[in-house]
């Protein structure tokens, strides 16, 4: 099976975010990491390859810093990488990101494409499904299990409130992967060494420009959300905070 994994670099979970001067995006001087669901998507692709052989290719769009995500994926066992390298990719909407990916892989023949179910920055939860539609492929979202069958694959979709559903589908297909589908592996020292010699194809903005249109939605303003609740911050040394909490539990919350 030849599998493409779409990955994204996002600000680290605990990174303090600062707004840029125009208040339309964050200042880029933060630490980044791989979007968590994408890490599970990669792991699943590597496991499928180990079972059925084939190739795992990773793709990302973003400035030079985003290459780190691909390097880590190669170190974990991906075979090669595609980097759509330009700052401009950061501000594309989900639709255009999918169009850029579709253009970059037009000469490839994949059996499966995996993406994380959503990104930790924008959180659109759209790019994967849009890509499937552009390619004319069937898709399934929020996947917790994948098995190869005679005619294609059987996947386990997570529904809300603890419900699940198996879906049979033909190949090629696109799946968006849920966090927790598997246990992530670490890169080995040998893997990290080997990654240096694995192919990394760079795709410049100009090569995919004709496939991209104007964004159909625009962030007018980004801001720190207004509090809807009057939060009372309890301060002091731990022993004192514990006393204050118990006082609240007794007199305000009335559970003691």
């Amino acid at each position, binding site marked *: 099976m030849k599998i493409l994994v779409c990955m994204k670099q996002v600000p680290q*979970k*605990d990174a*303090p*975010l600062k*707004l840029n001067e125009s208040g339309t995006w*964050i200042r880029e001087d933060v630490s980044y990491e791989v979007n968590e669901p994408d890490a599970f998507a990669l792991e699943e692709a590597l496991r499928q390859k180990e079972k059925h052989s084939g190739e795992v290719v990773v793709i990302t769009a973003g400035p030079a810093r985003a290459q780190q995500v691909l390097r880590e994926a190669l170190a974990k066992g991906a075979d090669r990488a595609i980097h759509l390298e330009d700052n401009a990719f950061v501000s594309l909407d*989900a*639709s255009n990101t999918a169009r850029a990916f579709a253009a970059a892989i037009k000469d490839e023949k994949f059996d499966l494409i995996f993406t994380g179910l959503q990104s*930790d*920055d*924008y*959180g*659109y*939860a759209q790019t*994967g*499904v*849009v890509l*499937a*539609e*552009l390619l004319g492929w*069937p898709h*399934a*979202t*929020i996947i917790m299990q994948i098995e190869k069958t005679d005619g294609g694959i059987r996947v386990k979709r997570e*529904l*809300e409130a*603890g*419900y699940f*559903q*198996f*879906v049979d*589908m*033909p190949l090629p297909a696109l799946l968006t992967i*849920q*966090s*927790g589908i598997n246990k992530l592996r670490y890169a080995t020292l040998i893997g990290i060494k080997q990654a240096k010699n694995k192919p990394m194809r760079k795709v410049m903005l100009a090569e995919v420009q004709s496939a991209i249109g*104007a964004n*159909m*939605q*625009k*962030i*007018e*303003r*980004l*801001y*720190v*959300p207004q509090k809807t*609740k009057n*939060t009372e911050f*309890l*301060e002091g040394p*731990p*022993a004192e905070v*514990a006393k204050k*909490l*118990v006082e609240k*539990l*007794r007199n305000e*919350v009335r559970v*003691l």
Partner: protein
Amino acid sequence: MADSILVIVEQREGKLNRVSWETLTAGQALAAETGWTLEAAVAGSGVTNLANEIAGKKVAKVYALESPKLEPYTPDAFAAGLKQFIASKQPRLVLMPHTYQVRDFVPKLTTAMERTAISDCIGYKKDGARLLFTRQMFQGKLAADVSFTCDAPWFVTFQNGAFRADKVEAGSAAAPVETVNVEIADGIIRNKPQEVFKEAKQAVDLTQAEIIVSVGRGIKEQKNIELAKQLAEALGGELAASRPICDSGWLPMDRQIGSSGQTVAPKLYLALGISGAIQHIVGMKGARTIIAINKDSEAPIFEIADYAVVGNLFDIVPPLIEEVKKAKAGA
């Protein structure tokens, strides 16, 4: 282009999903704001009863979109059926709840119509003549006001809990219901869905718990779960967790709170080392009192907390357990 708003409600196995009413409330508010006509649609096979149920609310018209191919749900059939209907009606706004099902077909539908969806919104604003939709970004740390820069129809999905289901206005008389038989060509449905099932009988029903102590990533290691357990026991409450903890197998899945787990509304929700990702918050924001302990002062959980402690949970929880025990013994 019609000056109308179309709310597409969600049904499963002949029952309306509760969030459908929330989206209808949003539709009514937007209709009042814009002066546009509000219509609703429900898609499936044999959905006239559901359409009648919606027709009791303040809407101009309800459409029952019927095809045997819409049951069971598949993204192929839903995208094809809705595309056909929306293209013929040309509403300005199409509103839907941001459910797992909507997430599954909407990007396909909008792409097929060369449009876009502003997804997972928590509200809207009127900015002169145009509408802005507010959505959370960076896991709730920031919010964004987003505009459409393309032609209508504009698709918007609203987050679970963004509007109040009990605020939906009843109509003065039942709205007309029209059945529309959508044509879904043979062979376009590629996925074969099997029966929906529940993994295992839920051993713990957290929805009945009055006190919940919940742990997140901040607990760091599996062995530290014991600390949270001791606090839960001291308080006489149940232990729960955010998704990553259950993913790691540190607590069973039936103790997970959030969109993929249980939705709870206890008297007290004590969040230990939970940052408060949207997916978690939708499962617990109905709690009467929320206490959050987290070392990151910017954690979104503090946005909804009644009492907040910025600090290391490993410093605060041990004396808290002692104080709770003392208080209980003294009472």
